[in-house]
């Protein structure tokens, strides 16, 4: 279980970083989404992985699972979903107005660093 979770986070992050380093908006956006999935799983695991435990303590409970990371993940999902929607819209309008979906702006004048 731990191995599965850890490798899922690792693989998602690796794929995400690879895609983010591409030059075009579409793979980059997919990469950012993958990274946000990775971070969601990671946050979920940060409250320790336990099976079949209630999130709220009661007298009869043998143990409990930490409910806070689940709330954090929920927040993170909502935020990353909204952010992805925004970046898709901005990337689309940039593509439609510039007729190119390259991320870098090397046709512009480069200054300094």
């Amino acid at each position, binding site marked *: 279980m731990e191995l599965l979770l850890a490798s899922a986070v690792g693989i998602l992050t690796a794929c995400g970083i690879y895609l*983010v380093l591409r030059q075009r*908006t579409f793979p*980059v*956006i997919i990469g*950012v989404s993958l*990274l*946000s999935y*990775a*971070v969601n799983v*990671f*946050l979920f*695991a*940060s*409250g*320790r992985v336990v099976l079949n435990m209630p999130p709220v303590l009661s007298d009869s409970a043998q143990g409990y699972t930490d409910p*806070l*990371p689940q709330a*954090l993940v929920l*927040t*993170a999902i909502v*935020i*990353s979903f*909204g*952010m992805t929607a*925004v*970046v898709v819209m*901005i*990337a689309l*309008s*940039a593509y439609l*107005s*510039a007729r190119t979906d390259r*991320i*870098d*702006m090397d046709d*512009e*004048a480069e*200054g*300094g*660093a």
Partner: protein
Amino acid sequence: MTHWIILPVVLPALLAPFIIMVIRHHLDLQRIFSIAGTAGLVLIAAGLLNHAASGDVVVYELGDWPAPFGIVLVLDRLSALMVILTAVLALAVLIYAVGTGWDARGRHFHALFQFQLMGLMGAFLTGDAFNLFVFFEVLLIASYGLMIHGGGSTRLRAGVQYVIYNLLGSTLFLFALGTLYAVTGTLNMADMAERVAALPLEDTALLRVGAVLLLVVFAIKAAVLPLHFWLPASYANAPGPVAALFAIMTKVGAYAILRMFTLVFGPDQAASAGLNAWLLPAALATLTVGMVGILGARQIGRLTAFAVIASMGTLLVAISLFTPQASAAALYYMVHSTFAASLMFLIADMVIARRGDDIVVTRPMPQGGMIAALFFAGAIALAGMPPLSGFIGKLLVLDAARGADWAVTIWAVILATSLIGIVGFARSGSVLFWKCHDPGIVTPPEDEDEIPDPVEIERAERAMRAPSPMALSAAFGLLGLLVVLTILSGPMMEYAEATVDQLYAPSDYIDAVLRRSAP
């Protein structure tokens, strides 16, 4: 007093939907409400500052949940300073945006502006690490909208870069928070500070990872080398007033470093020892790249963007020393550089509106003399020459660095880069404002065959208009603030020193948050 703390967050949060939903088709009403709301924010912030100056740490528990369980807002001297800085800056920038008509060149400027203020205020007031993330996202998502305000393909492409870079930063922030939560089991900053202090040294490996990740996140926001790449393209292509407001956004990163790395990972914490050894060289490199960028910039927008990087470099040099004296100098310099950078962005916008972005010799621009004077003052402030507050700020930083291990390097870098900056500003200033009056230099004749670009036409139309008194009053207001900051540097430094005393004695903060011992 108790409910006043949340007003800087709630007021823009209510105003923005009101602007969108009720008065979306009435630009004049939007302007009135937006300016009135921001002026109200200034008043509230002044009240909060007055209250915080007494040294109380005021805690506001949302939903009345006690501290480690619920989210708290905390007002101490540092938060109060940042809140009033943001409010005053926002008012000046908003007046400029209305005066130049920037707010009419796209939709929902005022609503986005208010949401941005909400995020900024929340980030400065919150006492909860995850809540800090949420407010970062609020201010970022509003800034995405503001960044591409007015449209245009270059701006949109710069916007894509900006958004993606910040999305990656947000992801990293979540990883850092997850790591810290996994180790400490809390997200409340005060509670986390106690748990970090109580953690045995051999268990701190994961904690260090979290702390470094957090530092990287804040370094992205603060545009520290080598994570500064997003800044020049974004700020140079953002609308002028928006870039001026963004001058506070890099300070959010600096504030977060100052807050987290004095409160939670304090300089005497064994778990986070040695982090500032990384920050200082990076800050020096940032300063160098910024000043060299000023010298090398061929557009005035980029010139100003690199000036922001340079000022962040100086600021972070002061912060990374983590001594009370250096942090007090950093606070003074932070206030100065926010106003100075913002003033420079406004001047750059006025220049761009009259003669375009490139630093080349063209015909003299309308109102060239006055703008040249403003540019001169702004350049003096940003390069750190007397008589304006930049000089005092740099002097304080140099003085604070005297006892440090790296003192010679810090002095050499700050002084040498100041010279580079002065040369850079002098070069672009003389090209922009003086050479066009030189009869010996022939400007290239206008190409008659060229089809006029819509941007050019728009620019010509805007330049033809009389200078708006509102826009000028905003720029002169910012300059006036710099003068006030120079004259009142004594009281300002007293406040900064009191703030630093509070920062380096975090037990008051922790007690106030966790045990309700404060009144």
